[in-house]
């Protein structure tokens, strides 16, 4: 892949990552509890900003680690079987997203086991310091690993083919775009929008988000398969 197509692929994978909602749910609870507990606007800003930075740092660490592991195992010339396997993973995750991502109940309840969801919600409500909030942001990204692993692996595979400077640019692009939904909620809360309206929008549009995440994964899978497998087999695109 050339640099523009590589960066576009990374950006698209990051956009799919951004459509997953565990971090947004945790940020919503964190903000709601903070406002409800009469914390100052400054403290709310500190907590939510720390959360955002925690999520960003964990995204960078995960992407860098996955790229490093792939590079060490396969080198920068990744075998086609790995690309094919990654396409299969994307497809499998897409089907899982369509089938399991949201529970078929009211609200925005996610696939995660109820006792873990309760732990996460309770932990979020007990969060009072910036460092706790930072850790919570990191944990919320790890908690979604089953679904974000597919776009992360594809981005890792694409990244290791780039020159070092562009690898850095790719990581930054991925991180910024993957944090888009969190950033939007962060800005909305900071600018005085009420959580009720934000949560209502999320609930009303949850099946749309679920569909687009799954469809995005399939489109990415198809693109990578055609470009990396068929393209190289047929004679190179």
């Amino acid at each position, binding site marked *: 892949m050339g640099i523009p197509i590589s960066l576009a692929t990374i950006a698209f994978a990051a956009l799919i990552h951004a459509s997953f909602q*565990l971090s947004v*749910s945790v940020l919503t609870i964190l903000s709601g*509890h903070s406002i*409800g*507990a*009469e914390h100052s606007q400054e403290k709310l800003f500190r907590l939510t900003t720390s959360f955002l930075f925690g999520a960003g740092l964990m995204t960078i660490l995960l992407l860098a680690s996955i790229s490093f592991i792939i590079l060490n195992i396969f080198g920068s010339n990744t075998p086609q079987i790995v690309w094919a396997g990654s396409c299969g993973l994307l497809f499998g995750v897409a089907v899982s997203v369509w089938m399991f991502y949201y529970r078929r109940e009211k*609200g925005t309840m996610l696939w995660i086991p109820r006792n873990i969801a309760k732990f996460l919600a309770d932990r979020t409500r007990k969060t009072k310091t910036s460092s706790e909030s930072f850790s919570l942001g990191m944990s919320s990204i790890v908690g979604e690993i089953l679904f974000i692993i597919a776009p992360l692996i594809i981005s890792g595979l694409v990244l290791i083919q780039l020159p070092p400077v562009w690898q850095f640019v790719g990581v930054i692009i991925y991180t910024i775009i993957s944090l888009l939904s969190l950033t939007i909620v962060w800005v909305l809360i900071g600018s005085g929008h009420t959580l*009720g309206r934000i*949560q209502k929008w999320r609930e009303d549009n949850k099946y749309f988000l679920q569909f687009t995440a799954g469809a995005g994964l399939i489109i990415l899978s198809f693109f990578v398969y055609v470009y990396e497998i068929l393209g190289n087999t047929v004679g190179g695109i």
Partner: protein
Amino acid sequence: MSLVVDIIKNSGTSERFDRNKLHKSIVAVCLSVRVPQGQAESIAHSVCDAVIVWLQDRPEVTSQDIRTVAGKYLKRFHPEAAYLYEQHHKII
């Protein structure tokens, strides 16, 4: 005369109904949708009164019952706060 009602929690344990606890939760949810403090206190007071009337002659109810009834009365005063109150365990 104080009201004596046992609340069965989701975990299966029970505890006495505590008006202050309900009051605090209603105030918190009102504040989280940016209702001014005084108005939040007033709404919480009205909702607690309504829930207590509903609890008369009911020696035992579940915490979910309390939440449903409080949400129903809260909806009359502030629908957005009521929506968030009902969403409490349904966000993650």
